[in-house]
């Protein structure tokens, strides 16, 4: 576990000044990175070097840096969140790379996630999908006691498995169709597993799927890349549940 120093790395990174700009790759050299550093700390060092050289630093989204806020969104060496499993980019560490490596860093690529600058993309489409029904319609106040609603431990755990989604968009970035099915399924499944969510289950599935289609996400062809790349290991079995909920909703129309 002792940290080593990577003497030299080549960072081939996507540069795009704004949404209108065509964009291109630039390659920068970086020296002496500890294997104990996170990938984003490596990006900090790179940016520091760029600023010192008078070059505009690489814009990238990052915030909590502990794998939960879901804002970091880099496509590294062809994989969302890079070459490790069940992590976000901020949890990816440089020990996953070797001295002398060329590391390719791109933004999420999907029509529904337009690039804002460099590695920063616009994911408001995800908010819009959830606004179409990803909630239980209760106002503040006037609700029953928490223990008045009994929920089996298994159901609560399964709901939690789905609710763990951090809304990062890795599933869309990994999918050859840029489908948002795993994202939609996670919310539909989380609420469908709980009695509180059952009441609006049909409308929720119908409305969220319709909104997803409107926003330009592609269809699901069961490739499973989303599950493989999901930093929270959300299972595609939730997509099966979404499909069931959706079919039931459609047939009862």
């Amino acid at each position, binding site marked *: 576990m002792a940290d080593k120093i990577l003497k030299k790395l080549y960072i081939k990174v996507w540069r795009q000044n704004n949404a209108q700009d065509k964009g291109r790759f630039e390659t920068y050299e970086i020296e002496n990175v500890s294997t104990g550093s996170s990938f984003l*700390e490596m990006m900090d060092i790179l940016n520091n070097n760029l600023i010192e050289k008078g070059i505009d630093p690489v*814009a990238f989204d990052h915030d909590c840096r502990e794998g939960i*806020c879901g804002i970091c969104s880099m496509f590294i060496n062809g994989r969302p969140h890079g070459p490790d499993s069940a992590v976000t980019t901020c949890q990816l560490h440089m020990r996953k790379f070797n001295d002398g490596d060329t590391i390719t860093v791109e933004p999420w690529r999907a029509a529904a996630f337009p690039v804002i600058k460099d590695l920063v993309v616009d994911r408001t489409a995800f*908010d819009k999908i959830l606004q179409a029904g990803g909630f239980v319609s*209760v106002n503040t*106040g006037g609700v029953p006691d928490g223990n008045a609603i009994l929920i089996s431990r298994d159901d609560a755990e399964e709901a939690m498995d789905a609710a763990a989604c951090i809304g990062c968009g890795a599933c869309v970035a990994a999918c050859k169709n840029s489908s948002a099915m795993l994202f939609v399924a996670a919310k539909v499944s989380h609420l469908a597993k709980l009695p509180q969510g059952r009441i609006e289950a049909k409308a929720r599935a119908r409305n969220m799927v319709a909104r997803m289609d409107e926003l330009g996400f592609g269809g699901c062809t069961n490739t499973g890349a989303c599950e493989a790349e999901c930093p929270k290991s959300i299972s595609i079995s939730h997509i099966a549940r979404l499909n069931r909920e959706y079919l039931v909703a459609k047939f009862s129309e």
Partner: protein
Amino acid sequence: MQKLNSKIPAGPLAEKWSRHKAAINVVSPANKRKLEIIVVGTGLGGASAAASLAELGYNVKAFCYQDSPRRAHSIAAQGGINAAKNYQNDNDSIFRLFYDTVKGGDYRAREANVYRLAEVSPNIIDQCVAQGVPFAREYGGLLDNRSFGGVLVSRTFYARGQTGQQLLLGAYQALNRQISKGNVKMYSRHEMLDVVVKDGKARGIIARDMVTGEIKRFGAHAVVIATGGYGNVFFLSTMAMGANGSAAWQCYKKGAMFANPSFVQIHPTCIPVHGSQQSKLTLMSESLRNDGRVWVPKKLEDAQKLREGKIGPNDIPDEDRDFYLERRYPSYGNLVPRDVASRAAKERCDAGYGVNPEGKAVYLDFKYSIERLGKKVIEARYGNLFQMYEKITDADPYKEPMMIYPAIHYAMGGVWVDYNLMTTIPGLYAIGEANFSDHGANRLGASALMQGLADGYFILPYTIGDYLAGEIMTPKVDVNAPEFEAAEKEVTDRLYKLFNVKGTRTVDYFHKELGHIMWDYVGMSRNEEGLKKAISGIQKLREEFWADVKIPGELNNLNPELEKAGRLADFFDIGELMARDALLRNESCGGHFREESVTEDGEAMRNDEKYAHVSIWEYLGEKKEPALHIEPLVFENVKLSQRSYK
């Protein structure tokens, strides 16, 4: 001093809130539709407030600097949320939660506010369950609880190690519902840069669209700040990278007073610092102390060998391990409050018993609970935390103890508010971590989530009505008024000034320097000499910053360096005020430890005769010393005693 009326209602403690609610004004539904409210920040406080206010019928504009309201740093809270439900039949009650919180805060919080917090806490759990928050359940289908530091009952509700995430998603879902109905207009990637005060009342904000760089004006009948704490003044902390104190600070500069700035919390269980390239510290939930035992070696030579990597922790037999928390505090053991646990870790490391190469780490060992309960149980309780630890450190906590060290985690201090959560600027409110009101000098674990949601769901929606009832004849706020123009110009001028320094050093360089000053002199242990050094050091560094900072990029484009520079400019001022406040408070209380004020056996010593008050600072202008005001704290229902967890 008229400005500082805390408006605590008369009457017995348990009746204050209900009496107050009965006495305050209510706005009719027809009038609510005509009123606008701005909510800045979308964490637990902001999202719950924005949603609840919109449900009531107000027109709400909500702002966050992230790309989506779901990302606010409340999401990172791991362990749980307290509520006085007494579901475990262990003699918990509203009074006990109140008492624990006042005591845990080392008697530096208002009784009335804390009691109200405890009083509404059960409603929070009910609300979250109704929203579909997947709290942990017992096999019979009832809600499960765990214990947290500083208390003797089990009152913490949790959703694995992701309680903050699940509660925030609940509030975000409620917010989304109101956005879809058109009752909330959401402005993501917008950063508030000033509050606009007109005729003595808060009437709007100036915000920068972080994508286009456009400076925009927004008007409203009331403004709510829910922008979190200022812990990032230390550079390295458990806060999100973007978390900042700027919104609160702009309010301060416009006349909102700032309370107890020196009260910050140092969390005992974080992953230790490695090297100089680190950007932030990762918290390991306090809940781990339920099943982990904290220790360092008894023998100095063992510590030396550990630091050199010659032996591992498992090579040290039980009899050579110093379980120092259990030794010093037999009744609370590993579950002492955070400030006590942090100082005890520092004490052992300063004495030479630290176990990592830097000598700044202690062990948190799960071996004993794995032996007692089995690996499966521990995995179910903490699996995601163990995984997170392994990803960061490359070490397996099922096989060897975690290494931990204290880190800055939370700001108890904040904008001063009265019982209605209103600041000293009429119409300007501060909720959640951004205000100072409920945690005194130290916050108990699982209470931040409780306070954010209490303020947002159940307190502000009532109290803001009392003010807005007087505003029903006020027309829609005109953002072309001279006050808006002046505020916008001030904001634009400052951005140009920063951008045009065109110096040689990066923003991070200055931030790291500030962090060193803060950690060394305004951190876990403070003394007069150090605090004076901190004040002059910060002043000098601030001058260098304004003369030599280098900001690349463009003003009218996404520019993270420009954002960071603006926040850092305010952190210098906040840091200085923290040091000033710490200097004047010559007592040890909660997270504030003055080396000059200790008992014979080295424990923190409060001085209730001189310091049983809130220190409140008023801004008097640039380069002028701020004025200090005092709000005495009156304790009618708890007996002040030196905290003892022995």
